């Protein structure tokens, strides 16, 4: 892969989900994260010439995403913010290790989702595909809201563990 634009496109594609996850962490909701990701993509595209193949694309893209997030928050009313600026900065400073290939991660997630018991998979799908609030899910299932939160949290934990172990399988 010697063509710089090819490398750039590969990296940008590869980093989409992780950038989304990063922005989601900073902003706390998928809609804002998506908007800011699109802004970020445009900025990265415009700055493509500044990118040197072989350097850390992720770090560069994250920094760019962070500034876009700050700009986005400045334009918003204060009460929509999840984080104060200093906590946002802490998140920006701490770079999680991105040792895994994006497509492997995606594959691992799908595999792990497939392993969930039907009932749990349905819960996850209702929560994420249909975007039904926890409160509603709890009511539909005749559970307390706190119990439903806990259940979703546990499923996410289980998924996370499963994904980590799959990724280790793939890289070992």
């Amino acid at each position, binding site marked *: 892969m010697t063509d710089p634009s090819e490398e750039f496109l*590969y990296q*940008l594609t590869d980093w989409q989900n992780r950038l989304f996850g990063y922005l*989601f962490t900073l902003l706390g909701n998928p809609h804002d994260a998506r908007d800011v990701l699109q802004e970020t993509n445009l900025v990265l595209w415009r700055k493509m010439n500044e990118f040197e193949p072989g350097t850390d694309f992720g770090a560069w893209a994250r920094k760019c995403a962070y500034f876009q997030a700050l700009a986005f928050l400045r334009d918003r009313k204060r009460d929509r913010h999840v*984080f104060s600026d200093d906590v946002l900065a802490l998140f920006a400073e701490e770079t999680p290790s991105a040792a895994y290939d994006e497509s492997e991660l995606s*594959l691992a997630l799908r595999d792990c989702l497939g392993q969930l018991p039907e009932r*749990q998979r349905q819960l996850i799908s209702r929560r*994420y595909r249909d975007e039904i609030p926890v409160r509603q899910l709890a009511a539909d299932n005749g559970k307390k809201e706190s119990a439903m939160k806990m*259940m979703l949290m546990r499923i*996410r934990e289980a998924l996370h563990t499963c994904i980590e172990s799959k990724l280790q399988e793939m890289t070992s």
Partner: protein
Amino acid sequence: MSEPDYDKEQLLALIAEVLDGRLDDVDRESLNDVLRESPEARRFYRKHMELHARLHLDYVGGQPAEFMPSHVFSRRQSWFSRRRLLVAAAAACFALIVGIALLRKPEPLGVNREFATVESSRAARWDSSNLPTTVGSRLKKGTLRLAEGLVTLRFDSGAQVTLEAPAELILVDPMHCTLANGIVVADIPDSAVGFRIATPSANVVDYGTRFSVIVDAATGETHTQVYEGLVEVEHPQSGEIVSLKSGQLNSADEKELREALDGANEPLGSMPLGPPMREPDWTHLETTQDAYIGISRLKGKVVHRSETLLLVKNGIPHRKTYLGFDLAGIDPARIVEAELILRLAPTGWGLASHVPDATFSVSGLLRNDLLWSDESITEETAPANVANQAGLVNTEVQKLGSFLIEQGVQRCQIKLQGESLLAFVRTHAGSNVTLILARDTAEIEDNGLVHGFASRRHPTLPAPTLAIRLTEVAD
């Protein structure tokens, strides 16, 4: 792993508020405080949010898939060619990129990967298994058949599963196994929440807990009992689900899933009894009376656990076994050796995992005139018994010896000899004698294994036997 330096439950609750878009000012302040103080909390937060984001993308996002040629992501390609093609595809449609959750039906991964370890093994004897069985072995997908003993496996997810013989367990992946028959006790840490044990009649799904599953080899019936936490038992045939909390149990067969029952500390099922043991070539006196005390009551009703086995348990209820031998007409002076022979057989009650290596004591009743019969003996009337306790009245008995049964052993022949037994038999020959069998070792947790010794009513195994060797009649 060290304790986190933040309140995990609080943080989880706050995360849930963020995700639901319902974070108020007070919550916001708490969340910022927690995350400002603890890098560990930030890591935890990030981990949760990233997974949430990924789930969101996987379900809601992934629009580029429609614009990328579908053959690009055919399932059989290697990682490398997939990567290269991804680049080409990306170049073709950059303007539309927002996410790449593309691969709808991945191949199952790691068919030959190892994902569990044989952690420990007690008195184990294996039937043909297609997996290694020595302690420390790494296990992949396959079947384990345990003929005797107790074996603990640890899955890489953190789930700990103890298999009690006889049992057949199929390992599927780090979060999933199938119990074809037998007993497993599962201990599931938070890391393995969602761990699933499938059986012929149910899917037992864990939510962070300790529980046991028993599958009857003959009927395929599943008995699930929860000691701590929460599990859900799914019935694949009907799609019904029953939740079991701490202390609850239920059962399922192919036709139906039964409701949760509260509180029984005891029975889970009945396992088949073993083949008869060989007898040594001695002169045998079998019991003329034998019985166990410590009858359990379930909802006020007396429940007889076994007609054919003499049960011993050091837990609630405390079960002791009384053995009566008729030594009338035997001349004490002629006795040169004495041996008590017992046959241990599986009772099917309780869990071997909850009882460590166990020591049993045999005591002799000092008075011969305290009459009891196996028909009428009770906790209260049994001679020298301290009712509802593990002990005996020390002044009324003499300890004759003790023996050890290793954890997990449920079938063996026990022979007890020694000077004390010989002296006792000599002293009391010529009349009835009573021996009392009790387990000194208490169970570690409720619902520990009940040990059972064949009684004189056992259809195949010999009764408890006092074997004695007599010298030639002297003139």
